[in-house]
């Protein structure tokens, strides 16, 4: 009901009746049209109320005005206004009913539209991921076809020699002994080449399929280099080349597959011998801050700058035939590259044409876990970088996407770990953000991926605040199984004090007691409650630790905590079933809840 009608129009009717002299006045004839006009501006309820007002006024007029007022006028006017009131009341009811049904339909429509939108978003992301998968498969297929036709070509050459020379030996009886020996030698050499080629093809296929068994152990790189040099030395001596090693005292052990690394060493060394006609070859290693760098230096012919990358490609060869060298398979360096990359190292070549080449590869000194930690502290300082959002909840993914895009990032969506892994391989995002809190096993896959490709994984727990938009809801994480240091680190990160009261929300007694035990031993005063609603009954606390709940329940707990006045600014630390030390987590410092997603981006940009 319009307020103007109540405050101005309705009170205005009363003096209007008196001033115009009541029913005797000819002006009364305009009352009906006036009231009808009102309905044009206001709703049927106004019509009902003004009619009732006139009814009442005309009913009490005789009492106020006394004898001068003719009673028959009351009898005429009151029923008229009453009929008006009834009609407008009916009309109002009908209209209200109509409106309700329209609203209901519109609500349903709205709900359907939303659901449809969600479905479309879902479908779109599914199509996207399917397209990505298809593109990748297509690429793989093209590569495979290319590889196969190359193989076929490579096999035909030695096969040609074997076939023609053996046929010659069979067909011609008048061949002298020397020539016969020469031909048999060629057949022998070419079958060896064929064998080597077959082995190397198998190696490539195995390394490519990712099903290689790595026998990782502590490896003394110095020993590998010396063994390699010892094996290749006779070859070098044959060509009159010098061969020496250049190794510092004691190299740090690295984690690696010794035999595979030796394979790389042998390959680089025999290549060096092959491409060097005078001078010598030096193999050695240098201790770098984070890695061991191995090198094989020769005084050979060197390679063109544009060949630097190509030499590591499959079947790329540097003019063997021209120089009258034994023909290699063209796979050696590509295998080396795959092996070194399997160790998460790098391999490259520096060269000066005519002066020689130096092949380098690096191996990390630290254990893989330690390196992942280092990786996790690297920030995404790229404005406009690409961020992958791994989140199975479509609505949440959309919220994250819209916000990140509004902040100038490009985004990629993934609704499952599998999609995420495939997408990340293909598109190399700068960071992965995930709000997905369940599923321990899938995480190992994405963690491996992130450590191989060097993509930091961030974890963020977001709740959607209707008033202020999406909010990062938690300040830190603890992963299960619990580890004393980790718990302390997580608490320390958000609570800058040695003592304090901590509330643990958990409906799992074991979990709650474990946490209580750890925290109690550090001097914190703890209390345990089963759900978020019970937090209010405890004394004010400095920190809330939320135990592991199923995802939906967890969001409900977080929402309750972040929307009730007594807990809105209290830092929250979550416990999770995944190893959060392997990823960087986004929290908001000690008491800064409510900063919204800008905070998240700040965290992304922050260098560890």
């Amino acid at each position, binding site marked *: 009901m319009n307020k103007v009608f109540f405050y101005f129009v309705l009170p205005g009717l009363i003096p209007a009746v008196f001033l115009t002299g009541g029913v005797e006045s000819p002006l009364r004839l305009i009352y009906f049209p006036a009231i009808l006009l009102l309905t044009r501006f206001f709703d049927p309820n106004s019509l009902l109320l003004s009619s009732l007002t006139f009814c009442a006024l005309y009913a009490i007029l005789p009492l106020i005005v006394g004898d001068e007022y003719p009673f028959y006028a009351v009898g005429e006017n009151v029923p008229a206004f009453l009929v008006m009131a009834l009609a407008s009341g009916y009309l109002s009811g009908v209209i209200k009913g109509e409106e309700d049904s329209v609203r209901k339909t519109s609500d349903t429509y709205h709900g359907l539209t939303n659901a449809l939108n969600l479905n479309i978003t879902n479908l779109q992301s599914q199509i996207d991921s399917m397209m990505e998968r298809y593109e990748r498969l297509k690429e793989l297929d093209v590569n495979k076809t290319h590889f196969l036709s190359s193989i076929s070509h490579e096999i*035909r*050459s030695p*096969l*040609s020699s074997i076939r023609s020379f053996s*046929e*010659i030996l069979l067909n011609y009886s008048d061949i002298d002994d020397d020539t016969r020996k020469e031909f048999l030698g060629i057949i022998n050499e070419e079958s060896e080449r064929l064998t080597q080629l077959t082995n190397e093809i198998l190696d490539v296929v195995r390394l490519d399929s990712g099903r290689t068994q790595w026998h990782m152990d502590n490896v003394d790189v110095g020993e590998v280099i010396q063994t390699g040099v010892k094996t290749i030395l006779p070859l070098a001596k044959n060509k009159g080349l010098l061969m020496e090693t250049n190794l510092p005292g004691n190299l740090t052990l690295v984690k690696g597959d010794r035999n595979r690394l030796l394979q790389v060493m042998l390959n680089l060394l025999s290549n060096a011998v092959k491409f060097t006609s005078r001078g010598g070859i030096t193999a050695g290693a240098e201790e770098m801050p984070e890695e061991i760098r191995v090198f094989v230096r020769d005084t050979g012919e060197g390679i063109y700058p544009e060949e630097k990358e190509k030499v590591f490609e499959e079947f790329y060869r540097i003019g063997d035939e021209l120089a009258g060298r034994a023909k290699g398979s063209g796979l050696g360096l590509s295998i080396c590259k795959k092996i070194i990359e399997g160790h998460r190292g790098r391999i490259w070549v520096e060269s000066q044409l005519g002066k020689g080449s130096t092949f380098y590869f690096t191996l990390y000194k630290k254990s893989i876990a330690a390196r992942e930690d280092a990786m996790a502290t690297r920030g995404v300082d790229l404005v406009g970088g690409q961020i992958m959002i791994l989140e199975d909840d479509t609505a949440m993914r959309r919220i994250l996407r819209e916000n990140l895009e509004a902040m100038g990032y490009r985004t990629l969506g993934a609704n499952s770990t599998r999609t995420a892994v495939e997408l990340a391989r293909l598109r190399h995002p700068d960071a992965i953000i995930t709000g997905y809190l369940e599923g321990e096993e899938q995480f190992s896959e994405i963690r491996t991926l992130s450590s191989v490709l060097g993509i930091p994984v961030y974890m963020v727990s977001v709740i959607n605040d209707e008033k202020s938009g999406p909010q990062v809801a938690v300040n830190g994480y603890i992963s299960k199984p619990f580890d004393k240091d980790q718990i302390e680190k997580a608490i320390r990160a958000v609570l800058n004090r040695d003592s304090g009261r901590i509330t643990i929300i958990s409906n799992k007694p074991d979990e709650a007691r474990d946490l209580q035990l750890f925290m109690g031993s550090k001097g914190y005063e703890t209390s345990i409650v089963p759900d978020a609603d019970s937090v209010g009954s405890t004394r004010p606390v400095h920190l809330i630790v939320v135990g592991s709940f199923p995802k939906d329940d967890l969001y409900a707990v977080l929402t309750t905590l972040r929307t009730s006045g007594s807990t809105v600014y209290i830092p929250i630390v979550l416990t999770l079933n995944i190893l959060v030390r392997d990823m960087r987590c986004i929290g908001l410092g000690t008491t800064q809840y409510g900063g919204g997603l800008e905070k998240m981006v700040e965290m992304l940009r922050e260098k560890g």
Partner: protein
Amino acid sequence: MTILVVDDEPFIQRSLSFVFKKEGYEVEVARDGEEGLRKARSLKPRIIFLDLMMPKMNGFNTCRAIKADPELKDSYVIILTAKGQEIDKEQGLREGADEFLTKPFSPKEIVARIRSILGERNE
């Protein structure tokens, strides 16, 4: 009667020239397209064997150059390659090659082909 073998693989050169010599033909070898074209122009061989993947000038280009040379119009060009795909064959024939053979090959069959090209009777 000269046969020219243009191939960068020494073993192919060796086997073909051995067989051709045995059968009483004169043989010359070249190890890349440029050398092949040069030798073809000076020797005017009756038959030329051409590999496709060679340094300096590949087989297709060499073939085109040979076929464009009016003095070499009587030379019969046989492409002998490990690239056995239909598309390579098509291109080879388009460049004017008279025949397209793939490796691995049988020297006996090659000799039989030469005889029939030269109009000799197979024994």
